[in-house]
């Protein structure tokens, strides 16, 4: 039984199709899944969208074996104009995930600071929301995940892949949960680390 961060849903489904074993994924926001694990919901593996929550589980002794299974990549998606640092003027309205709660939001925030850009911000709950703020034309652009633009087959000229050095890495960490089926958990974690899996993960827009 795997708890999977919602933003990794598409990629995970792809992986599961090629995994040689039975998987029961539950998708949800990392915060929700974390709360469920803390409250004793039986999972074997937790694929979080961040590092903080798995770490907290490890600190509480509920999990072990932290392992970065993917690194998210931030892109700036725009509705008009050519995406890039110059696009981020003070007149633009740009959506980002809530920096306080979402890793992509945090990364976007760091990027804006690094570029010293101050567009008008609109906060979404997560990248998915930031994405459809942009997709619905409610904002001029949005910081979203590369995985999303790839999955939605967004034309490449509409987004700018933010260079890695502008933000601290968006590490998505997996852990095995104590008390679950630890053999199956080990097998899945091992598979995630395999070259085959990593290739698929990268193809989906992660590093």
């Amino acid at each position, binding site marked *: 039984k795997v708890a999977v961060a*919602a933003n990794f*849903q*598409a990629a995970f*489904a*792809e992986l*599961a*199709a090629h995994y040689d074993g*039975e*998987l*029961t*994924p*539950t*998708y*949800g926001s990392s915060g*929700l899944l974390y*709360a*469920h694990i803390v*409250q*004793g*919901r039986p999972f074997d593996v937790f694929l979080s969208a961040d590092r903080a929550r798995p770490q907290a589980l490890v600190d509480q002794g509920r999990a072990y074996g932290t392992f970065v299974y993917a690194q998210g990549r931030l892109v700036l998606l725009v509705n008009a104009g050519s995406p890039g640092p110059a696009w981020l003027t003070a007149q633009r309205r740009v959506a980002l995930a809530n920096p306080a709660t979402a890793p992509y939001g945090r990364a976007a925030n760091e990027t804006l600071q690094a570029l010293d850009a101050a567009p008008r911000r609109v906060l979404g709950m*997560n990248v*998915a929301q930031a*994405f*459809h703020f942009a*997709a619905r034309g409610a904002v001029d652009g949005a910081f979203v995940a590369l995985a*999303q633009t790839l*999955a*939605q087959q967004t034309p490449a000229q509409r987004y700018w892949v933010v260079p890695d050095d502008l933000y601290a890495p968006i590490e998505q960490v997996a852990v095995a949960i104590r008390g679950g089926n630890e053999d199956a958990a080990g097998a899945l974690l091992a598979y995630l680390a395999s070259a085959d899996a990593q290739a698929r993960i990268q193809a989906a827009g992660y590093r």
Partner: protein
Amino acid sequence: MRRRASKQRVTASVPAGADVLEAAWVTALLALATTAILLVLAPPLAWWIARTRSKWRAPVEALTALPLVLPPTVMGFYLLIAMARSGPLGGLADAIFGAPLAFTFAGLVLGSMIYSLPFVTGPLTSAFRGTDAQLLEAAASLGTAPMPRFLRLVLPLHRKALVAAAVLGFAHTVGEFGIVLMIGGNIPGETRVLSIALFDRVETLDYAGAHAIAGGLLAFSLLVLTFTYRWLRP
């Protein structure tokens, strides 16, 4: 409950149509169960609120409205804590049934009940307050005790309000999301309801799927509601 479905291999991204039907089924069951239980609990509570002169009336009335002021996700969060094995409700359920309430259909019903209660008691209380006291006296003078007076006179007098309140509660349970997400755990066939299936699609940017579910839900609800409301002819 078709638990086997959850064991199946997950195919590509979006759950298939069968999944939606399953979620619809769970939703219908949940809404029916919640509404049925509320229709037993809410009328006496609303009647008490509408009629009592106790000084506890206002606080109790406020208490029934309280679930409203907390965002459902937050309510759900607290309910989750209460319903987990370590929580009071969950511990109790664990001791009795061998399973905590969290992540079960029963837990979902309980959570929805708490959250939908104000939507059922509210209209009922408003309607009950308008009861003609003279009719109650007349019934009493014929020898009818308070309980049969309530069952045989008050409820039939306010059958329209009962229908309206039930519909409100039902619809609200169908659309409920935050609590279901928190304490249900999105288990297909057991706690995965339509609102979550719909939310999943929005989250995964599967807008076509989202439109389809939302459209179906709306069209179906509009039909059912219109049909039900026909009974409320003036």
